[in-house]
């Protein structure tokens, strides 16, 4: 019974997405277009380096990694910061605050339908195309199971970070700059735009102590490793779990402190 309300929200999200057929088509096409850009960009980078392998990754490896990172990004990006910012600015957040559910939980499940839709429209097609084109560069084994677990945790960490940044809007009442900054930081430090292997040694070490790499780097590393050492996987998943807990506690606490700050604009 308790679970039903969450599933219902997911269902409504799916229904809502399905209402906009064209938007789904554009999403698919936009994803493809971006992939083409990545292909030519990295081709040029490898050509100019004059080597087959840069930082231990071949062009082939890099491309597979980035293509999957992009589709994972399309799948995980939740636009929570926008949603919260708009709600706070316009005052429509009142209606969400007055649902018989925690705001944070409500916002998550309201969006969750899009995960399902995005999975089928962006991630799965890309994944299948990559599998076929590369003829088995992506290993299909136990790593898929670990990957699913890693993605679930990545989604939670990503949401907690988004929610934390969204909460800042309570103080600033403006979202644009903050959101752009967040996006750049997350995409760069998580390994979504450039594989972390390409970072200089010191920065790479620092990045491993930050939560961001748990969002994209962790699940992708697991996915692309066909012969996983169970110890490595355990370390990666364990690190993710720690970040899940830490980001959850921090974002919840920050929200709790900030809520009395709310003024609710308009009317």
């Amino acid at each position, binding site marked *: 019974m308790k679970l*039903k*309300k969450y599933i*219902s929200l997911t269902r*409504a999200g799916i229904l809502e997405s399905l209402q906009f057929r064209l938007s789904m088509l554009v999403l698919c096409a936009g994803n493809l277009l971006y992939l083409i850009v990545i292909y030519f960009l990295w081709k040029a980078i490898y050509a100019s380096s004059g080597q087959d392998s840069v930082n231990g990754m071949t062009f082939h490896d890099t491309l597979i990694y980035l293509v999957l990172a992009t589709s994972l990004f399309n799948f995980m990006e939740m636009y929570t910061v926008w949603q919260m910012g708009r709600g706070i600015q316009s005052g*429509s957040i009142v*209606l969400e605050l*007055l649902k*018989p559910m925690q705001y944070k939980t409500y916002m998550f499940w309201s969006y969750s339908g899009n995960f399902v839709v995005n999975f089928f429209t962006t991630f799965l097609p890309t994944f299948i195309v990559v599998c076929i084109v590369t003829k088995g560069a992506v290993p299909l084994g136990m790593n898929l199971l670990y990957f699913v677990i890693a993605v679930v945790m990545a989604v939670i960490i990503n949401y907690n970070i988004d929610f934390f940044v969204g909460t800042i809007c309570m103080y600033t009442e403006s979202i644009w700059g903050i959101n752009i900054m967040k996006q750049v930081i997350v995409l760069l430090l998580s390994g979504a735009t450039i594989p972390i292997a390409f970072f200089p040694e010191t920065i790479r070490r620092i990045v491993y102590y930050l939560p961001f790499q748990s969002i994209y780097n962790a699940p992708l590393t697991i996915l692309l490793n066909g012969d996983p050492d169970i110890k490595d996987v355990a370390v990666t998943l364990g690190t993710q779990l720690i970040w899940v807990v830490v980001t959850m506690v921090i974002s919840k606490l920050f929200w709790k402190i900030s809520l009395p700050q709310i003024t609710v604009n308009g009317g």
Partner: protein
Amino acid sequence: MAPVIDIKNITKEFKVLNRREGLAGSIKDLFSRDYKIVKAVDNITMSIGQGEIVGYLGPNGAGKSTTIKMMTGVLEPTSGEILVNGKLPYRNRSKNAQNIGVVFGQRSQLWWALPLVESFKLLKDIYQISDEQYDGMMKLYQSLVDIEPLLHKPVRQMSLGQRTLSDILAAFLHDPKIVFLDEPTIGLDVSMKAKIRTLIHALNKEKNTTVILTTHDMGDVDALCRRIVIIDKGRMLYDNDISHLKGFFGSYRTLKIRVDGDLSKESAVIAKEFPEFKVSADDEWISLLVDEEKSTIMDVFTGLQKKRRISDMQLEEISTEDVIRKIYEEGVK
């Protein structure tokens, strides 16, 4: 019986930055710590019982919405006590939400892209409404308004009136103890207003739901509320039955007469004859606002008739609107 809403001396203050003008001023503002305290709600006390419909009135910016947001638990009062259903609303917001329904006239809680029935089903699950209760509610709605054509229409394709109606039905769906209606008839045509008033009235009767209604339309107040509360600049001006309101400034009635000749000239003459009353003229009528504690309508009329031939006359009861306007403009004596 314990009141469902019990408010004692609540005050809500907001901290607002004193802004300067111009580009230079705006840049200085970035580093300014020059705040002023604005009291949006100032020492309000009231207690509302189960099943009442209370009209909550006040001019724009009086602090009505702020009070409502405190009652719903979105805002925490700066000082004072507030209990809704016996609980502190801001501490138990999610639990409290189960017992209240809200309609903000300018916002919709419905799922914009989906047919209405999907929103209802979703609310059913979110509020954990049992099947019997849901079916019962739908039957009740069916008997009150013609919702069948609305149910399968996406909310975004609805007219404002249909959407407001749907929003009201959605707010009552989980049979809350209290429903807050914030300007539900804003921007609606006459027939839709009437429909919505009938609906609110019927739901209040049927379910004994307490309704807190803020509005600027005195038609809503006359049609629905027995009790009204008026606030302005955060302070309570009036809290009593609507029937007392008309006697609040003495008992006034408007006497309208028509005479031959230039009405504006004539009205100036009459104003001299009756300096204690307000006299005005338009294209058709000369109106006298008569305070019946000073002299009766009949005396005034006889006095007028002695000096001139009156071709036609009308007597108007003072409307709620007039009284409220007087309160907004002049405050309480």
